Protein backbone atom coordinates (compact mmCIF):
# COMPACT_ATOMS: atom_id res chain seq x y z
CA UNK A 1 0.00 0.00 0.00
CA UNK A 2 2.73 2.39 1.00
CA UNK A 3 4.80 1.58 -2.07
CA UNK A 4 2.52 3.55 -4.35
CA UNK A 5 2.71 7.27 -4.78
CA UNK A 6 -0.67 7.58 -6.50
CA UNK A 7 -3.84 7.71 -4.47
CA UNK A 8 -5.88 5.95 -7.17
CA UNK A 9 -3.49 3.02 -7.21
CA UNK A 10 -3.66 2.69 -3.43
CA UNK A 11 -7.43 2.55 -3.46
CA UNK A 12 -7.46 -0.07 -6.21
CA UNK A 13 -5.11 -2.22 -4.16
CA UNK A 14 -7.14 -1.75 -0.98
CA UNK A 15 -10.50 -2.78 -2.46
CA UNK A 16 -8.96 -5.73 -4.28
CA UNK A 17 -6.94 -7.03 -1.30
CA UNK A 18 -9.79 -6.50 1.17
CA UNK A 19 -12.14 -8.51 -1.03
CA UNK A 20 -9.55 -11.25 -1.37
CA UNK A 21 -8.55 -11.43 2.30
CA UNK A 22 -12.10 -11.46 3.64
CA UNK A 23 -13.17 -13.81 0.88
CA UNK A 24 -15.90 -11.29 0.16
CA UNK A 25 -17.92 -10.61 -2.97
CA UNK A 26 -16.49 -7.17 -3.48
CA UNK A 27 -15.69 -3.80 -1.94
CA UNK A 28 -15.96 -0.13 -2.62
CA UNK A 29 -13.95 2.71 -1.29
CA UNK A 30 -15.12 6.26 -1.15
CA UNK A 31 -13.77 9.44 0.35
CA UNK A 32 -15.75 12.59 0.84
CA UNK A 33 -14.36 15.99 1.55
CA UNK A 34 -16.70 17.20 4.26
CA UNK A 35 -15.59 20.77 3.75
CA UNK A 36 -16.66 20.86 0.11
CA UNK A 37 -19.13 17.95 0.41
CA UNK A 38 -17.64 16.63 -2.81
CA UNK A 39 -16.80 13.04 -3.62
CA UNK A 40 -13.01 12.98 -3.80
CA UNK A 41 -11.95 9.45 -4.53
CA UNK A 42 -13.52 6.27 -5.55
CA UNK A 43 -12.54 2.68 -6.22
CA UNK A 44 -14.55 -0.54 -6.56
CA UNK A 45 -13.85 -4.21 -6.96
CA UNK A 46 -16.04 -7.29 -7.60
CA UNK A 47 -19.33 -5.47 -8.11
CA UNK A 48 -21.45 -5.44 -11.26
CA UNK A 49 -21.69 -2.43 -13.53
CA UNK A 50 -25.47 -2.36 -13.12
CA UNK A 51 -25.22 -1.87 -9.38
CA UNK A 52 -22.38 0.63 -9.49
CA UNK A 53 -24.04 2.71 -12.19
CA UNK A 54 -27.12 3.13 -10.07
CA UNK A 55 -25.55 6.03 -8.19
CA UNK A 56 -23.58 6.76 -5.08
CA UNK A 57 -24.08 3.73 -2.90
CA UNK A 58 -23.02 5.56 0.24
CA UNK A 59 -24.44 8.99 0.88
CA UNK A 60 -22.93 11.94 2.66
CA UNK A 61 -25.18 11.26 5.67
CA UNK A 62 -24.20 7.60 5.88
CA UNK A 63 -20.51 8.38 5.77
CA UNK A 64 -20.63 11.16 8.36
CA UNK A 65 -22.76 9.02 10.67
CA UNK A 66 -20.33 6.13 10.30
CA UNK A 67 -17.37 8.33 11.09
CA UNK A 68 -19.16 9.83 14.07
CA UNK A 69 -19.72 6.35 15.50
CA UNK A 70 -16.19 5.40 14.43
CA UNK A 71 -16.80 1.67 14.53
CA UNK A 72 -17.44 -1.12 12.06
CA UNK A 73 -21.14 -1.55 11.26
CA UNK A 74 -22.60 -4.80 10.01
CA UNK A 75 -25.68 -4.65 7.79
CA UNK A 76 -27.53 -7.96 7.73
CA UNK A 77 -30.91 -6.81 6.48
CA UNK A 78 -30.16 -5.64 2.94
CA UNK A 79 -33.79 -4.94 2.05
CA UNK A 80 -34.69 -3.23 5.32
CA UNK A 81 -31.63 -1.29 6.49
CA UNK A 82 -31.81 2.45 5.64
CA UNK A 83 -28.04 2.46 5.17
CA UNK A 84 -28.48 0.56 1.93
CA UNK A 85 -29.26 3.11 -0.76
CA UNK A 86 -30.43 0.72 -3.46
CA UNK A 87 -31.62 -2.43 -1.68
CA UNK A 88 -33.31 -3.97 -4.72
CA UNK A 89 -30.24 -3.63 -6.92
CA UNK A 90 -27.96 -4.83 -4.13
CA UNK A 91 -30.14 -7.90 -3.62
CA UNK A 92 -30.16 -8.64 -7.35
CA UNK A 93 -26.39 -8.28 -7.34
CA UNK A 94 -26.35 -11.14 -4.83
CA UNK A 95 -25.40 -9.02 -1.81
CA UNK A 96 -26.63 -10.48 1.48
CA UNK A 97 -24.43 -8.73 4.03
CA UNK A 98 -22.42 -5.50 4.16
CA UNK A 99 -19.62 -4.31 6.43
CA UNK A 100 -19.03 -0.55 6.70
CA UNK A 101 -15.57 0.41 7.91
CA UNK A 102 -15.02 4.10 8.76
CA UNK A 103 -11.95 5.93 7.59
CA UNK A 104 -10.72 9.31 8.79
CA UNK A 105 -8.22 11.54 7.08
CA UNK A 106 -7.11 14.70 8.78
CA UNK A 107 -9.87 16.82 10.23
CA UNK A 108 -12.20 17.21 7.32
CA UNK A 109 -12.06 14.27 4.98
CA UNK A 110 -13.75 11.06 5.89
CA UNK A 111 -14.40 7.96 3.96
CA UNK A 112 -15.89 4.56 3.90
CA UNK A 113 -14.64 1.14 3.00
CA UNK A 114 -17.76 -0.96 2.32
CA UNK A 115 -17.30 -4.72 1.95
CA UNK A 116 -20.01 -6.83 0.29
CA UNK A 117 -20.67 -10.50 1.08
CA UNK A 118 -22.77 -13.02 -0.81
CA UNK A 119 -23.90 -14.72 2.38
CA UNK A 120 -24.45 -13.99 6.05
CA UNK A 121 -21.48 -14.80 8.17
CA UNK A 122 -19.90 -14.07 11.49
CA UNK A 123 -16.94 -11.75 11.20
CA UNK A 124 -14.51 -12.47 14.03
CA UNK A 125 -13.16 -9.69 16.22
CA UNK A 126 -9.71 -10.44 14.82
CA UNK A 127 -10.89 -9.83 11.31
CA UNK A 128 -12.66 -6.63 12.35
CA UNK A 129 -9.50 -5.42 14.10
CA UNK A 130 -7.62 -6.31 10.96
CA UNK A 131 -10.02 -4.20 8.89
CA UNK A 132 -9.62 -1.25 11.25
CA UNK A 133 -5.84 -1.58 10.89
CA UNK A 134 -6.20 -1.67 7.09
CA UNK A 135 -8.31 1.48 7.22
CA UNK A 136 -5.72 3.26 9.39
CA UNK A 137 -2.84 2.20 7.13
CA UNK A 138 -4.89 3.30 4.19
CA UNK A 139 -5.30 6.79 5.67
CA UNK A 140 -1.54 7.11 6.14
CA UNK A 141 -0.80 5.85 2.63
CA UNK A 142 -3.32 8.24 1.09
CA UNK A 143 -1.89 11.11 3.10
CA UNK A 144 1.61 10.29 1.90
CA UNK A 145 0.52 9.89 -1.71
CA UNK A 146 -1.42 13.15 -1.56
CA UNK A 147 1.61 14.97 -0.26
CA UNK A 148 3.75 13.55 -3.06
CA UNK A 149 1.09 14.42 -5.63
CA UNK A 150 0.92 17.95 -4.26
CA UNK A 151 4.71 18.33 -4.42
CA UNK A 152 4.72 16.95 -7.96
CA UNK A 153 2.00 19.34 -9.01
CA UNK A 154 3.89 22.29 -7.46
CA UNK A 155 7.02 21.21 -9.28
CA UNK A 156 5.15 20.80 -12.58
CA UNK A 157 3.65 24.25 -12.12
CA UNK A 158 7.09 25.72 -11.48
CA UNK A 159 8.58 24.03 -14.55
CA UNK A 160 5.67 25.23 -16.66
CA UNK A 161 6.00 28.76 -15.30
CA UNK A 162 9.76 28.85 -16.00
CA UNK A 163 9.25 27.51 -19.52
CA UNK A 164 6.49 30.03 -20.16
CA UNK A 165 8.54 32.97 -18.93
CA UNK A 166 11.51 31.88 -21.00
CA UNK A 167 9.33 31.54 -24.12
CA UNK A 168 7.83 34.98 -23.49
CA UNK A 169 11.37 36.33 -23.07
CA UNK A 170 12.45 34.95 -26.42
CA UNK A 171 9.31 36.24 -28.05
CA UNK A 172 9.85 39.68 -26.52
CA UNK A 173 13.38 39.83 -27.92
CA UNK A 174 12.10 38.83 -31.37
CA UNK A 175 9.32 41.41 -31.28
CA UNK A 176 11.76 44.08 -30.11
CA UNK A 177 13.93 43.56 -33.16
CA UNK A 178 11.03 43.49 -35.59
CA UNK A 179 9.47 46.63 -34.15
CA UNK A 180 12.68 48.61 -33.74
CA UNK A 181 13.30 48.52 -37.49
CA UNK A 182 10.06 50.20 -38.56
CA UNK A 183 10.37 52.55 -35.58
CA UNK A 184 13.83 53.53 -36.84
CA UNK A 185 12.28 54.64 -40.13
CA UNK A 186 9.56 56.64 -38.38
CA UNK A 187 11.94 58.32 -35.94
CA UNK A 188 14.60 59.10 -38.52
CA UNK A 189 12.17 60.82 -40.90
CA UNK A 190 9.97 62.53 -38.33
CA UNK A 191 12.88 63.89 -36.27
CA UNK A 192 14.38 65.27 -39.49
CA UNK A 193 11.15 66.65 -40.96
CA UNK A 194 10.38 68.53 -37.77
CA UNK A 195 13.27 70.87 -38.61
CA UNK A 196 11.92 71.55 -42.06
CA UNK A 197 8.39 72.63 -41.22
CA UNK A 198 7.28 76.10 -40.02
CA UNK A 199 7.93 76.64 -36.35
CA UNK A 200 4.27 77.45 -35.63
CA UNK A 201 1.68 75.29 -37.23
CA UNK A 202 -0.13 71.99 -37.28
CA UNK A 203 2.71 70.14 -39.06
CA UNK A 204 5.18 70.94 -36.32
CA UNK A 205 2.69 69.93 -33.65
CA UNK A 206 1.90 66.64 -35.41
CA UNK A 207 5.54 65.78 -35.95
CA UNK A 208 6.35 66.62 -32.34
CA UNK A 209 3.76 64.07 -31.28
CA UNK A 210 5.10 61.44 -33.67
CA UNK A 211 8.67 61.90 -32.40
CA UNK A 212 7.57 61.90 -28.78
CA UNK A 213 5.41 58.78 -29.14
CA UNK A 214 8.09 56.92 -31.10
CA UNK A 215 10.61 57.64 -28.39
CA UNK A 216 8.05 56.35 -25.91
CA UNK A 217 7.78 53.10 -27.90
CA UNK A 218 11.56 52.86 -27.87
CA UNK A 219 11.45 53.00 -24.06
CA UNK A 220 8.81 50.26 -23.85
CA UNK A 221 10.81 48.01 -26.14
CA UNK A 222 13.95 48.62 -24.13
CA UNK A 223 12.02 47.47 -21.08
CA UNK A 224 10.93 44.37 -22.97
CA UNK A 225 14.54 43.64 -23.79
CA UNK A 226 15.43 44.13 -20.13
CA UNK A 227 12.85 41.51 -19.29
CA UNK A 228 14.14 39.11 -21.92
CA UNK A 229 17.29 38.75 -19.82
CA UNK A 230 19.60 39.96 -22.49
CA UNK A 231 21.01 42.77 -20.41
CA UNK A 232 23.66 41.19 -18.27
CA UNK A 233 23.88 42.67 -14.80
CA UNK A 234 26.85 44.93 -14.12
CA UNK A 235 27.79 43.51 -10.76
CA UNK A 236 29.72 45.47 -8.15
CA UNK A 237 29.89 45.13 -4.37
CA UNK A 238 26.84 46.81 -2.88
CA UNK A 239 24.71 46.57 0.22
CA UNK A 240 21.09 45.71 -0.38
CA UNK A 241 19.97 47.86 2.59
CA UNK A 242 21.61 50.93 0.98
CA UNK A 243 19.88 50.20 -2.33
CA UNK A 244 16.52 50.00 -0.53
CA UNK A 245 17.36 53.38 1.06
CA UNK A 246 17.98 54.89 -2.39
CA UNK A 247 14.73 53.45 -3.77
CA UNK A 248 12.85 54.91 -0.80
CA UNK A 249 14.43 58.32 -1.39
CA UNK A 250 13.28 58.29 -5.02
CA UNK A 251 9.68 57.74 -3.94
CA UNK A 252 9.74 59.93 -0.84
CA UNK A 253 7.42 62.48 -2.46
CA UNK A 254 4.86 59.87 -3.45
CA UNK A 255 4.72 58.56 0.11
CA UNK A 256 4.21 62.05 1.47
CA UNK A 257 1.49 63.00 -1.02
CA UNK A 258 -0.47 59.80 -0.37
CA UNK A 259 0.16 59.83 3.41
CA UNK A 260 1.78 56.42 3.21
CA UNK A 261 3.87 55.29 6.15
CA UNK A 262 6.95 53.21 5.49
CA UNK A 263 8.34 50.88 8.13
CA UNK A 264 11.71 49.27 7.59
CA UNK A 265 13.28 46.37 9.40
CA UNK A 266 16.65 46.13 7.67
CA UNK A 267 18.88 43.47 9.14
CA UNK A 268 22.42 44.43 10.06
CA UNK A 269 23.48 41.00 8.84
CA UNK A 270 23.11 42.19 5.24
CA UNK A 271 26.72 42.44 4.11
CA UNK A 272 27.77 43.76 0.69
CA UNK A 273 27.25 41.39 -2.19
CA UNK A 274 28.05 41.40 -5.92
CA UNK A 275 24.97 42.67 -7.71
CA UNK A 276 23.85 45.26 -10.23
CA UNK A 277 22.96 48.18 -8.02
CA UNK A 278 20.95 50.05 -10.67
CA UNK A 279 18.97 47.00 -11.70
CA UNK A 280 18.16 46.05 -8.10
CA UNK A 281 17.15 49.63 -7.40
CA UNK A 282 14.82 49.39 -10.39
CA UNK A 283 13.26 46.23 -8.93
CA UNK A 284 12.66 47.88 -5.56
CA UNK A 285 11.29 51.07 -7.13
CA UNK A 286 8.91 48.97 -9.25
CA UNK A 287 7.69 47.06 -6.19
CA UNK A 288 7.25 50.27 -4.20
CA UNK A 289 5.37 52.02 -7.03
CA UNK A 290 3.02 49.05 -7.26
CA UNK A 291 2.46 49.15 -3.50
CA UNK A 292 1.73 52.91 -3.60
CA UNK A 293 -0.70 52.48 -6.49
CA UNK A 294 -2.48 49.59 -4.76
CA UNK A 295 -3.21 51.65 -1.64
CA UNK A 296 -5.60 54.40 -0.76
CA UNK A 297 -4.33 57.32 1.26
CA UNK A 298 -2.90 56.34 4.59
CA UNK A 299 -1.60 52.92 3.65
CA UNK A 300 1.44 51.23 5.13
CA UNK A 301 4.47 49.65 3.46
CA UNK A 302 6.77 47.34 5.42
CA UNK A 303 10.19 46.40 4.13
CA UNK A 304 12.19 43.70 5.80
CA UNK A 305 15.60 42.28 4.95
CA UNK A 306 17.21 39.18 6.39
CA UNK A 307 19.63 36.43 5.46
CA UNK A 308 18.21 33.05 4.48
CA UNK A 309 19.40 29.58 3.49
CA UNK A 310 22.05 29.58 6.23
CA UNK A 311 23.44 32.92 5.14
CA UNK A 312 23.69 32.00 1.46
CA UNK A 313 20.94 34.30 0.25
CA UNK A 314 19.37 37.64 1.01
CA UNK A 315 15.62 37.89 1.48
CA UNK A 316 13.90 41.18 0.90
CA UNK A 317 10.21 41.40 1.72
CA UNK A 318 7.84 44.18 0.65
CA UNK A 319 4.45 44.17 2.29
CA UNK A 320 1.61 46.60 1.67
CA UNK A 321 -1.89 47.19 2.96
CA UNK A 322 -3.29 47.73 -0.53
CA UNK A 323 -6.24 46.25 -2.39
CA UNK A 324 -4.51 42.91 -2.93
CA UNK A 325 -4.83 40.64 -5.93
CA UNK A 326 -7.10 37.76 -6.90
CA UNK A 327 -5.47 34.38 -7.54
CA UNK A 328 -5.93 34.66 -11.35
CA UNK A 329 -3.93 37.91 -11.36
CA UNK A 330 -1.32 36.48 -8.99
CA UNK A 331 -0.64 33.60 -11.39
CA UNK A 332 0.13 36.00 -14.23
CA UNK A 333 1.59 38.94 -12.37
CA UNK A 334 5.13 38.60 -13.80
CA UNK A 335 4.05 38.17 -17.44
CA UNK A 336 4.89 41.07 -19.73
CA UNK A 337 1.91 43.30 -20.59
CA UNK A 338 -0.18 41.81 -17.79
CA UNK A 339 -1.50 44.64 -15.66
CA UNK A 340 -4.27 45.30 -13.18
CA UNK A 341 -3.82 49.05 -13.46
CA UNK A 342 -5.84 51.19 -15.84
CA UNK A 343 -2.75 52.93 -17.19
CA UNK A 344 -0.04 50.35 -16.58
CA UNK A 345 2.19 48.95 -19.31
CA UNK A 346 2.44 45.61 -17.53
CA UNK A 347 6.20 45.69 -17.79
CA UNK A 348 7.36 46.77 -14.32
CA UNK A 349 7.09 43.37 -12.66
CA UNK A 350 8.11 41.51 -15.84
CA UNK A 351 11.31 43.55 -15.95
CA UNK A 352 11.84 43.02 -12.22
CA UNK A 353 11.40 39.29 -12.74
CA UNK A 354 14.02 39.32 -15.52
CA UNK A 355 16.47 41.27 -13.37
CA UNK A 356 16.06 38.96 -10.37
CA UNK A 357 16.48 35.91 -12.64
CA UNK A 358 19.66 37.50 -14.01
CA UNK A 359 20.94 37.60 -10.46
CA UNK A 360 20.15 33.88 -10.11
CA UNK A 361 17.47 34.87 -7.64
CA UNK A 362 13.77 34.43 -7.23
CA UNK A 363 10.78 36.72 -6.80
CA UNK A 364 7.44 35.57 -5.45
CA UNK A 365 4.13 37.29 -4.81
CA UNK A 366 1.56 36.52 -2.13
CA UNK A 367 -1.79 38.22 -1.94
CA UNK A 368 -5.50 37.95 -1.40
CA UNK A 369 -8.11 40.47 -2.49
CA UNK A 370 -8.53 43.15 0.17
CA UNK A 371 -5.68 41.82 2.26
CA UNK A 372 -2.69 43.60 0.76
CA UNK A 373 0.19 41.96 -1.02
CA UNK A 374 3.68 40.87 -0.20
CA UNK A 375 6.58 40.33 -2.57
CA UNK A 376 9.64 38.38 -1.56
CA UNK A 377 12.87 38.80 -3.48
CA UNK A 378 15.65 36.30 -2.86
CA UNK A 379 19.14 37.02 -4.17
CA UNK A 380 22.19 34.85 -3.59
CA UNK A 381 24.83 36.44 -1.39
CA UNK A 382 28.00 36.62 -3.52
CA UNK A 383 31.12 37.99 -1.88
CA UNK A 384 33.59 36.81 -4.51
CA UNK A 385 33.99 38.91 -7.69
CA UNK A 386 32.46 37.44 -10.88
CA UNK A 387 34.79 35.61 -13.31
CA UNK A 388 37.11 37.56 -15.62
CA UNK A 389 35.18 36.61 -18.74
CA UNK A 390 31.95 38.02 -17.41
CA UNK A 391 33.72 41.14 -16.24
CA UNK A 392 34.85 41.89 -19.83
CA UNK A 393 31.26 41.99 -21.01
CA UNK A 394 30.12 43.91 -18.02
CA UNK A 395 32.55 46.73 -18.63
CA UNK A 396 30.88 47.15 -22.03
CA UNK A 397 34.21 47.45 -23.85
CA UNK A 398 36.77 45.05 -25.27
Amino acid at each position, binding site marked *: MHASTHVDEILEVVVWKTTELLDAKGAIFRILNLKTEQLELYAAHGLGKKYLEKGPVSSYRIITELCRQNEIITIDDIMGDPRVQYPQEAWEEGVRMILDIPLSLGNHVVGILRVYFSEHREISKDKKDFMVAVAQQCSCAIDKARLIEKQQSLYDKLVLHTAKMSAIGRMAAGIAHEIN*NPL*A*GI*LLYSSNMIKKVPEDGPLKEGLDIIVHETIRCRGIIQEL*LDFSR*EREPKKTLANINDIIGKALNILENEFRIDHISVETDLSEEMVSSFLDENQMEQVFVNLLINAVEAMDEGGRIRIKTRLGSEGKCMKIEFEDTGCGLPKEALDRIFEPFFTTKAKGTGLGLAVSYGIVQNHMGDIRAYSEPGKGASFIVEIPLIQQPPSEETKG*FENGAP
Partner: protein
Amino acid sequence: MEPLKILVIDDEQVICSGCRMILSELGHTIDTCNTCKEGLDAIRKLDYHLVLLDIKLPDSDGMEILKIVRVEKSEIHIIVMTGYATIRSVVSAMRLGAFDYLPKPFTDEELIASVEKAMKNVAGSGKVQ
Protein backbone atom coordinates in the same frame (compact mmCIF):
# COMPACT_ATOMS: atom_id res chain seq x y z
CA MET B 1 35.47 69.32 -42.58
CA GLU B 2 35.51 67.43 -45.88
CA PRO B 3 32.36 65.54 -46.81
CA LEU B 4 32.56 61.78 -46.56
CA LYS B 5 31.77 58.90 -48.88
CA ILE B 6 29.34 56.80 -46.89
CA LEU B 7 27.80 53.39 -47.58
CA VAL B 8 24.59 52.37 -45.77
CA ILE B 9 23.95 48.61 -45.59
CA ASP B 10 20.50 47.75 -44.23
CA ASP B 11 17.82 45.38 -45.49
CA GLU B 12 15.23 48.00 -44.49
CA GLN B 13 15.03 50.31 -47.51
CA VAL B 14 13.30 52.99 -45.42
CA ILE B 15 16.33 53.25 -43.16
CA CYS B 16 18.69 53.41 -46.16
CA SER B 17 16.60 56.18 -47.70
CA GLY B 18 16.29 58.07 -44.40
CA CYS B 19 20.04 57.99 -43.81
CA ARG B 20 20.64 59.04 -47.42
CA MET B 21 18.28 62.01 -47.14
CA ILE B 22 19.68 63.26 -43.84
CA LEU B 23 23.37 62.73 -44.57
CA SER B 24 23.31 63.95 -48.18
CA GLU B 25 21.81 67.22 -46.94
CA LEU B 26 25.02 67.63 -44.95
CA GLY B 27 27.00 67.25 -48.15
CA HIS B 28 28.08 63.63 -47.82
CA THR B 29 27.91 61.19 -50.72
CA ILE B 30 25.68 58.25 -49.88
CA ASP B 31 25.34 54.80 -51.46
CA THR B 32 22.98 52.19 -50.12
CA CYS B 33 22.53 48.45 -50.43
CA ASN B 34 20.35 45.85 -48.77
CA THR B 35 22.41 42.67 -48.48
CA CYS B 36 25.71 41.57 -47.07
CA LYS B 37 26.94 40.48 -50.52
CA GLU B 38 26.11 43.77 -52.24
CA GLY B 39 27.68 45.61 -49.34
CA LEU B 40 30.96 43.69 -49.56
CA ASP B 41 31.10 44.15 -53.35
CA ALA B 42 30.63 47.89 -52.97
CA ILE B 43 33.22 48.14 -50.17
CA ARG B 44 35.78 46.28 -52.28
CA LYS B 45 35.07 48.31 -55.41
CA LEU B 46 34.85 51.84 -54.00
CA ASP B 47 36.71 53.74 -51.33
CA TYR B 48 34.31 54.61 -48.54
CA HIS B 49 35.25 56.54 -45.46
CA LEU B 50 32.35 55.30 -43.46
CA VAL B 51 29.94 52.36 -43.50
CA LEU B 52 26.65 52.35 -41.59
CA LEU B 53 26.05 48.67 -41.08
CA ASP B 54 23.01 46.75 -39.85
CA ILE B 55 24.41 43.63 -38.21
CA LYS B 56 21.31 41.57 -38.93
CA LEU B 57 21.13 41.09 -42.68
CA PRO B 58 19.08 38.57 -44.65
CA ASP B 59 21.92 36.75 -46.44
CA SER B 60 24.59 36.79 -43.77
CA ASP B 61 25.56 38.18 -40.40
CA GLY B 62 26.77 41.80 -40.63
CA MET B 63 29.57 40.76 -38.28
CA GLU B 64 31.10 39.00 -41.31
CA ILE B 65 31.49 42.37 -43.04
CA LEU B 66 33.20 43.72 -39.91
CA LYS B 67 35.68 40.84 -39.96
CA ILE B 68 36.47 41.22 -43.66
CA VAL B 69 36.77 45.03 -43.54
CA ARG B 70 39.12 44.76 -40.59
CA VAL B 71 41.45 42.61 -42.68
CA GLU B 72 41.01 44.08 -46.15
CA LYS B 73 40.21 47.78 -45.54
CA SER B 74 40.97 48.63 -41.97
CA GLU B 75 40.90 52.38 -42.72
CA ILE B 76 37.12 52.30 -43.14
CA HIS B 77 35.12 53.45 -40.09
CA ILE B 78 32.08 51.33 -39.37
CA ILE B 79 29.06 52.41 -37.34
CA VAL B 80 26.98 49.40 -36.40
CA MET B 81 23.17 49.70 -36.29
CA THR B 82 20.81 47.12 -34.89
CA GLY B 83 17.30 46.81 -33.58
CA TYR B 84 18.39 44.33 -30.98
CA ALA B 85 21.19 45.78 -28.93
CA THR B 86 22.64 43.70 -26.15
CA ILE B 87 25.83 44.42 -24.28
CA ARG B 88 27.21 41.20 -25.69
CA SER B 89 26.51 42.22 -29.30
CA VAL B 90 27.97 45.70 -28.73
CA VAL B 91 31.11 44.21 -27.21
CA SER B 92 31.45 41.73 -30.09
CA ALA B 93 31.06 44.50 -32.67
CA MET B 94 33.57 46.73 -30.88
CA ARG B 95 36.04 43.86 -30.62
CA LEU B 96 35.74 43.42 -34.37
CA GLY B 97 36.73 47.04 -34.83
CA ALA B 98 33.41 48.89 -35.10
CA PHE B 99 33.83 52.62 -34.51
CA ASP B 100 30.46 53.34 -32.95
CA TYR B 101 27.12 51.80 -32.21
CA LEU B 102 23.65 53.13 -33.01
CA PRO B 103 20.78 51.22 -31.44
CA LYS B 104 17.59 51.46 -33.50
CA PRO B 105 15.42 53.46 -33.48
CA PHE B 106 17.57 56.60 -33.52
CA THR B 107 16.80 60.25 -34.29
CA ASP B 108 18.45 62.22 -37.06
CA GLU B 109 20.50 64.05 -34.45
CA GLU B 110 21.81 60.84 -32.97
CA LEU B 111 22.76 59.70 -36.49
CA ILE B 112 24.43 63.01 -37.31
CA ALA B 113 26.32 63.06 -33.99
CA SER B 114 27.69 59.58 -34.62
CA VAL B 115 28.70 60.42 -38.20
CA GLU B 116 30.35 63.67 -37.05
CA LYS B 117 32.31 61.77 -34.45
CA ALA B 118 33.51 59.44 -37.20
CA MET B 119 34.31 62.43 -39.44
CA LYS B 120 36.60 63.92 -36.82
CA ASN B 121 38.33 60.62 -36.45
CA VAL B 122 38.70 60.20 -40.22
CA ALA B 123 40.08 63.76 -40.50
CA GLY B 124 42.39 63.15 -37.57
CA SER B 125 43.83 60.10 -39.23
CA GLY B 126 44.26 62.06 -42.45
CA LYS B 127 42.33 59.64 -44.52
CA VAL B 128 39.92 61.98 -46.27
CA GLN B 129 41.15 62.26 -49.83
